């Protein structure tokens, strides 16, 4: 870590914490069903700040009866209001929501940082602005659906069941809710049990926007609630972002039904650095690829494949850069790496990292003071990793980078594709023809060339192979919520 330095060092570190006063948390939250907050029938649970382990609020748990009520409310809103409303009017609601998100951006960013543990700098500069951008982008689609490539009168699917993860709570909500609403669907969304609070604030924003009751319903709970929701027969569309294991379970649940499904699941992306890459930019990209959001990113560049001839140089520069990362208080605007989201996730990162050492990889972390309360994990780099190691195969979902080397482009492709996942990949080289050749051969839904971890509402995102199916973002993300004007499923 950066030494604190003496007091006469004008560049010495000084904390710059963002005030949390802007967030007005209630002690407890109900479920948001049919336009109002109601009590849940399940056992309420607490959402904590992973940086301090303090309780932020108590949240209701939705059981099967609550799921039933929510799906019914969404169905009613779909048939009576939302699907009948002209697209141009739906658009105005979405624009309104986008504007309110911008107006309340600071509040959302602070709350996201508190509930998730991610650095405020990221929630302020990335999460929340991209959330607003998603609503703006899809708002504009609502009255242009006949240009989406699905014929002259594409239809909404109906009620969408949406289950989202804890790594980008509000951003994943936006990825799900904005296209669904633009296309004329209504939604029942379940945020992750460790990060429900920004979704509940979003429910307040829906009220503030006077969005018709039942168009957006937000029910909180854990796995059982999600299971009840995706399995509910009144649901026409399931959209899930999360682990591959749960994604497979959902695929089994919906088998034999007419439900349409999109799954955004795990990843084990290769970030490939060639010997002619601009090394300093590549190092920034590697750091951004794996340490952004504590590595809690399904498309994280968790496997660095570096060409043997430059491996020493790249690693030396990488370690020097990682030593400057500041780990700590998420609300401190200096912080690069925040808290791990939960004790459970921290245990998983510890377990997989231990397996890396046990299987013979070399572990390195910068000297790093971690706070005494909360969940923390120092940025970690494993070298001498082989493809067979668990840390090269399993998704760690933490700030842990596995480094492998290669000699030829074809070996890089072989190693990069040697995984059941296929969400993203990175390529670093100055040679244009090589970028395009690698991009063609990599089995990944998103390929970042000389950049990494870039997201945009207009850009489709989603995986090959066991990273799931369907796309979110762009025109393709819209199409995932529409049926062509012919009978859906027709051959």
């Amino acid at each position: 870590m950066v030494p604190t330095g003496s007091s006469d060092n004008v560049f010495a570190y000084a904390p710059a914490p963002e005030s949390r006063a802007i967030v007005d948390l209630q002690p407890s939250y109900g479920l948001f069903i049919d336009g109002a907050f109601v009590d849940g029938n399940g056992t309420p649970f607490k959402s904590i700040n992973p940086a301090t382990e303090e309780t932020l609020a108590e949240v209701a748990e939705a059981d099967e009866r609550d799921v039933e009520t929510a799906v019914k409310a969404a169905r009613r809103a779909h048939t009576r209001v939302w699907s009948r409303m002209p697209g141009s009017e739906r658009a105005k609601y979405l624009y309104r929501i986008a504007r309110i998100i911008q107006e309340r951006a600071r509040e959302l960013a602070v709350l996201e940082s508190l509930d998730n543990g991610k650095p405020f700098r990221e929630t302020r500069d990335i999460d929340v602005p991209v959330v607003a951008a998603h609503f703006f982008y899809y708002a504009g689609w609502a009255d242009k659906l006949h240009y989406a490539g699905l014929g002259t009168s594409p239809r909404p699917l109906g009620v969408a069941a949406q289950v989202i993860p804890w790594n980008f709570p509000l951003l994943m909500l936006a990825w799900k809710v904005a296209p669904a609403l633009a296309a004329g669907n209504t939604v029942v969304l379940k945020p992750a049990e460790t990060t429900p609070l920004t979704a509940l604030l979003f429910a307040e924003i829906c009220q503030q926007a006077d969005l018709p009751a039942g168009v957006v319903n937000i029910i909180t709970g854990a796995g059982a609630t999600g299971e009840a929701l995706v399995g509910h027969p009144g649901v026409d569309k399931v959209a899930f972002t999360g682990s591959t294991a749960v994604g497979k379970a959902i695929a089994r649940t919906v088998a034999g039904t007419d439900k349409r499904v999109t799954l955004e699941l795990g990843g084990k992306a290769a970030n490939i650095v060639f010997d002619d890459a601009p090394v300093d930019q590549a190092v920034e990209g590697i750091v951004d690829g794996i340490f952004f959001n504590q590595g809690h990113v399904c498309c994280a560049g968790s496997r660095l494949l570096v060409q043997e001839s430059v491996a020493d140089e790249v690693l030396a520069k990488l370690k020097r850069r990682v030593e400057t990362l500041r780990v700590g208080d998420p609300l401190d605007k200096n912080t690069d790496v925040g808290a791990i989201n939960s004790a459970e996730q921290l245990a998983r990162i510890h377990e997989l990292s231990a397996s890396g050492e046990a299987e013979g990889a070399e572990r390195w972390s910068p000297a790093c003071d971690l706070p005494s309360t909360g969940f923390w994990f120092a940025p970690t780099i494993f070298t001498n990793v082989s493809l067979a190691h668990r840390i090269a195969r399993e998704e760690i979902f933490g700030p842990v980078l596995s480094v492998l080397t290669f000699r030829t482009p074809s070996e890089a492709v072989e190693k990069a594709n040697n995984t059941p996942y296929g969400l993203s990949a990175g390529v670093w080289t100055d040679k244009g023809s090589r970028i395009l050749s690698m991009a063609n051969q990599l089995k990944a839904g998103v390929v970042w060339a000389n950049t990494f971890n870039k997201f945009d509402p207009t850009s489709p995102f989603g995986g090959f192979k066991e990273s799931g199916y369907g796309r979110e973002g762009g025109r393709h993300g819209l199409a995932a919520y529409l049926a062509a004007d012919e009978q859906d499923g027709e051959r």
Partner: protein
Amino acid sequence: MARIDVRKTYKLYIGGAFPRSESGHSYEVTDAGGKFVANASLASRKDARDAVVAARKAFGGWSGRTAYNRAQIVYRIAEVMEDRRPQFVTAVRQAEGLTAARAERVVDAAIDRLVWYAGWADKLTQVVGNANPVAGPYFNLSTPEPTGVVAVLAPQESSLLGLVSVVAPVIVTGNTAVVVSSYERPLPAVNFAEVLATSDVPGGVVNILTGAAPTIGPWLASHMDVNAIDLAGVAGDAALATDLEVAAADNLKRVRRAPAAEPDWNAEPPLTAMTDFVEIKTVWHPIGV
């Protein structure tokens, strides 16, 4: 004395060759009236696995061809079929019990379907791809790519038009296919395999197994090196279709679900016949000097 017929042995089509089933099993094929026509190979689990290996081996080369070249080859299939039109008319009449006139219309529709799909090879990317105007200095392009090896359970009733309608969209987009033919009407599929073998289609791009979808289907649905499955051949059997979809979840295969009843294959196919078997890949690159 009447001349003794030279009867044909109907075999499987795997990796560009015509092997018998490794199991040694065959089954009796009758015409629509129930009269014995021939013995067909009864494909086994091992045959299905061999076919997957052949399809995987062929995938790199086939998906790497230019779209123009794939279009040429799919059009060539149509040409060769047209040349052998009387044979297909006979086979369809025999299998489906149609009048000569109706069988001719079916064969014409199958050939025309191939011509239609041939034209898609170099257009799908333009129709479903996108340049995306991201809010930053980046070039950003989304294009479709083939999913990989696709298991195709071909329709049971429409032995030729249905077959062509499920195979063509899979291969024209750059995938390779392991096809299970109609069980009771397999011979048009064997004739089709013989056309494929003489139409510049590389060996392994299409593999055709004659046999029963309920017995081979589960092995293909659960095979970890199959990327997608079309369940057209179990239309109407909701229980089996559900089982296959559940098995397909093991490696998250893309599933084209079974319709409630076999559709009218004469209708122009929807785009999803192709897009269900492609992946959208998005490539980013910074713009700068």
